[in-house]
């Protein structure tokens, strides 16, 4: 006979109450695990995606930076464009190591004419984004496909590929699961500009600096170039962290309420159990049990109840993840939600307009706001 055995047997005294308590705790712990998983997955997936971008700084047309960065991360048409002739001053800026010009747009592709995002990139793109697995720059009349789209359309390297009535040769297919760009079609910058009817226009410029620690300094230099908005990856990560922290606080508030409800559930079950066992507890005391031993036994029951079911949910949660790894599937990622959110924003089909819009101060990154605040002598304009 041991206290653990006694506690286990005590729990089985009221099967209905036991099951009800278990369900309450199970639901609470499931929500806890899901919420923490979502929060963590969301955070890490975003950060990983930003890292995969391969750039320290993004140069984008003036406009809403949230919109621009979202479109660049997930693919889509920007409403405003950077003029291609701004590429030279960017390249000449001190501290800039390598620059890749990118244009994005959407066109119907493949035999089913489904609209996909087209990414036109120059000769440095494959160097800045090695995780895609492209070995060389895209030549004219060649395309490279994201892994997913190649699977969906059952295409392989060397096949012909139709985009808006023009035929291209598939030169490469991106590595599986390398980035979140599995739905994109990559092509030569000039070909993409021609296809998107946006000659001389760029959606963004990816910039790698010599020393990532000096990103802010380089960004300040780049800001002197007219009609250009500059975002450092640090800015973006900080903003994402702000978003995620806010979401996390909300999640934790809900969790605290759920845990309180679960605790009240356990408390009620244990209180009724203790009331029901008043005579037995008295008998235990008569047998020489100290009040500490009686309290320990009751607490042990609650602890087993909590541990057993929380643990079962941990197992239930971990099993699919382990299975995912075994079958080499990608872990479910919150980035899909992020993408979905931005894809819902319709930026138009051929709209690559001009960059003559002023920045809406409300649309600045928090770190940019701070910087502007300092520039304006402590007051927002």
């Amino acid at each position, binding site marked *: *006979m*041991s*206290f653990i*055995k*006694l506690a286990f*047997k*005590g729990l*089985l*005294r009221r099967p209905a109450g036991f099951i009800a308590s278990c369900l309450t705790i199970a639901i609470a712990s499931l929500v806890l695990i899901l919420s923490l998983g979502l929060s963590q997955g969301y955070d890490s997936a975003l950060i990983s995606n930003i890292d995969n971008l391969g750039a320290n700084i993004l140069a984008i047309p003036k406009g809403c930076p949230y919109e621009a960065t979202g479109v660049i991360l997930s693919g889509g048409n920007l409403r405003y464009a950077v003029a291609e002739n701004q590429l030279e001053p960017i390249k000449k800026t001190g501290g800039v190591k390598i620059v890749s010009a990118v244009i994005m747009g959407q066109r119907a592709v493949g035999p089913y004419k489904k609209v996909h995002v087209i990414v036109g990139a120059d000769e440095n793109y494959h160097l800045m984004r090695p995780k895609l697995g492209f070995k060389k720059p895209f030549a004219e009349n060649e395309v490279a496909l994201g892994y997913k789209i190649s699977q969906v359309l059952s295409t392989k390297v060397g096949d012909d590929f139709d985009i808006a009535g023009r035929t291209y040769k598939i030169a490469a297919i991106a590595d599986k699961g390398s980035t979140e760009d599995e739905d994109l079609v990559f092509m030569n910058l000039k070909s993409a500009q021609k296809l998107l009817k946006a000659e001389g226009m760029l959606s963004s410029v990816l910039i790698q600096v010599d020393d990532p620690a000096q990103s802010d300094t380089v960004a300040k230099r780049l800001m002197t170039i007219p009609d250009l908005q500059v975002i450092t990856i640090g800015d973006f990560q900080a903003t994402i962290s702000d978003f995620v922290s806010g979401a996390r606080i909300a999640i934790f508030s809900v969790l605290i309420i759920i845990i309180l409800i679960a605790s009240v559930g356990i408390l009620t079950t244990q209180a009724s159990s203790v009331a029901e066992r008043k*005579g*037995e507890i*008295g*008998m*235990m*005391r*008569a*047998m*020489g*049990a*100290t*009040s500490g*031993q009686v309290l320990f036994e009751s607490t042990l029951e609650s602890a087993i109840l909590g541990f057993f079911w929380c643990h079962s949910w941990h197992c239930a949660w971990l099993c699919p993840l382990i299975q995912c790894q075994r079958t080499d599937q990608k872990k479910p990622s919150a980035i899909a939600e992020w993408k979905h959110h931005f894809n819902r924003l319709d930026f138009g089909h051929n709209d690559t307009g001009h960059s003559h819009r002023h920045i809406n101060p409300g649309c600045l990154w928090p770190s940019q706001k701070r910087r502007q605040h300092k520039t304006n002598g402590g007051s927002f304009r």
Partner: protein
Amino acid sequence: MSDTIIAKGISKSFKRGTETIHAIQDISLNIGKGEMLSIMGRSGSGKTTLLSCIGMLENIDSGSLVLEGRNIKDLSEAQRTILRRELMGFVFQRFFLIPTLTAYENVALPGLFAGKKLGKDHIMELLEMVGVSQRYDHRPGQMSGGEMQRVAIARALALDPPVIIADEPTGNLDTANAEAVFGLFRKLASQGKTIIIATHSQKLAKDCDRVVELMDGRITRDEKN
């Protein structure tokens, strides 16, 4: 016969709302080693309270109580618990067996609280002595009232205490079982254990060495049979 229990002028009262109920008043009682004493009286006469005070389940309001030479007023709550564990075995009318434990496990329970591992042979011996060894793996719900009370007696004897306190142990039993259980107490008394039994049964009380009768919390009769 040396006195195991010496109670001098003990009183105990309870508050029920604004009313004070004097459950026992000025009770003096010496109980010798190996004595089998029955406490009789109507319901509410103070039998259970007297047993609870002797068993240190209730603190006395006044008077003194000496158990095996130790005055309980000098003891802390923890020391009383240990003394109770060493000195007393309890048997109640409602058995209070743990329903999810088998007969064997119920008997083993006092060992858990005392931090002693009771041997299998010892437990089976106790069950054999009370006549339910064949039911060692049965739960209380699978046993009759008489069998449950026997298991409760075996449990009371698990740590071999010198005093057994039984509060109406035959109250829930039929005549045959009541006599059998009483026979067990008789046997224990003959082995040198002090038995204090609260009972309503005149017939069973007559088989005890001594009868104490209570009325309104006071002793009205104290006779040897």
